[in-house]
């Protein structure tokens, strides 16, 4: 009887090992120390939006940088706040409601190549678009799981051709839409194992090679998809969703909620449960990280990141502290 039990345990363990190996249960980061020594972040300043008419930022979550360098932020006052690159509030728009230019919970924000601003409403399951100065342009999306429908749209990205990418949180997928909001394709599938499986994605971004980066928050990883929507790479120690705990600096992510790519290829990740921003090479090797020094341990932050057009600055929303963190980026020596 004991032998039978030991045999059974052995079979279970062997099966787990096989699944871990063949299901590609995430990858550990490679850590090129030489690169990490020169690269990193320094906190330049933080913005609270104290000069905004509607009051300072409260629970900022979404952030995007326009081609002009202006920074757009969504917050809990149910509005969009537009900052100049030096942190002055230019304008703000939006209030509670179901109509045009009104929000219940604006979470994601992106700016297209022509300056059009896209805002996702997590509660209303729709996306609204605005001119760079906040005039309502159009809206699309309804509640549901069908093509073009959303269940809590979170992070957004816009391609150079105007295609829109939406991290569809409760549908565990990313949707690609045309510039007019028509459904093109679903990227990724609901799941915990293997390339392409997504579990509560919260952020999406595009690389200079037009790959699609997805912050696969509750699979504890970032995934790359090619332009046709096929999964090509995953980074982050995925095994840990079985045993979630704060991870050490180079072992992986804990609830990565957003990622963004610099013009020179470097990738920045909002590693929210570790309260830090992580820099990766274009292929996902760890380069450096920066921790929020006075982070609130009870709230995951930063939530979203955005990168200046020249790649020298990373902006991160710190919902817990009602501010935007402005980080100077020291690039790796080889520019990757």
């Amino acid at each position, binding site marked *: 009887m004991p032998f039978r039990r030991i045999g059974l345990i052995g079979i279970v363990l062997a099966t787990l090992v096989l699944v871990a190996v063949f299901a590609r249960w995430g990858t550990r980061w490679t850590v090129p120390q030489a690169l990490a020594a020169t690269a990193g972040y320094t906190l330049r300043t933080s913005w609270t939006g104290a000069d905004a008419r509607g009051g300072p930022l409260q629970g900022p979550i979404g952030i995007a940088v326009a081609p002009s360098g202006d920074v757009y932020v969504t917050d809990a006052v149910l509005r969009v706040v537009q900052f100049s690159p030096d942190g002055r509030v230019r304008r703000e728009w939006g209030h509670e409601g179901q109509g045009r230019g009104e929000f219940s*919970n604006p979470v994601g924000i992106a700016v297209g190549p022509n300056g059009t601003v896209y805002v996702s409403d997590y509660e209303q399951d729709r996306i609204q678009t605005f001119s760079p100065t906040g005039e309502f342009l159009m809206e699309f999306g309804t509640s549901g799981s069908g093509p073009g429908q959303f269940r809590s749209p979170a992070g957004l990205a816009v391609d150079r051709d105007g295609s829109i990418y939406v991290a569809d949180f409760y549908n565990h997928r990313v949707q690609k839409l045309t510039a007019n909001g028509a459904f093109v394709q679903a990227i990724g599938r609901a799941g915990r194992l293997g390339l392409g499986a997504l579990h509560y994605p919260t952020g999406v971004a595009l690389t200079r090679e037009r790959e699609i980066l997805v912050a696969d928050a509750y699979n504890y990883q970032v995934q790359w998809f090619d332009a046709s929507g096929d999964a090509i790479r995953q980074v982050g120690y995925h095994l840990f969703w079985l045993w979630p705990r704060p991870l050490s600096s180079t072992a992986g992510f804990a609830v990565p909620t957003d990622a963004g790519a610099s013009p020179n290829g470097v990738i920045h990740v909002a590693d929210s449960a570790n309260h830090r921003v992580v820099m990766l090479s274009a292929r996902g090797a760890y380069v450096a990280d920066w921790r929020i020094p006075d982070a609130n341990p009870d709230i995951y932050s930063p939530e979203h990141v955005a990168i200046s057009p020249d790649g020298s600055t990373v902006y991160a929303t710190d919902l817990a502290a009602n501010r935007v963190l402005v980080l100077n980026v020291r690039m790796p020596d080889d520019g990757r």
Partner: protein
Amino acid sequence: MRMRTKFRRTDHLIVMRVTRILTIAALVLVAGGLRTQAQTQSTGAREAVVTVKGMQCPFCAYGIKKHLAKIPGVRKVEVDLGKNQAIVEFAPDAKPTDEQIQRAVHDAGFTAGKIEWRSTPKGSGGTGGRQ
């Protein structure tokens, strides 16, 4: 014998006075209590304070808020990430149950812990906004 009768009359008078004082005191207390109750429950609404363990991620907290808001009769939902709490306010005529709250939290990907019911204090009406 006389002494005893006199004593009994005095005793009766004291009892009468004490009873009168106690009655007045009781009436004052009841009146005060009723007024306090009228002040704190004048909205007639109830709210549930729901503990949701592990609610530290804003995306999850907003998901919980969204699902709770779909329960019939909900007037307002607030989430407090730091305290792991969601406060759900119901209209006076709503008949919410613990099961409805547990199901909503479950649909949002979490498990509801302790649910505490209390009357909604007067003037607690929301001003909107994402909390």
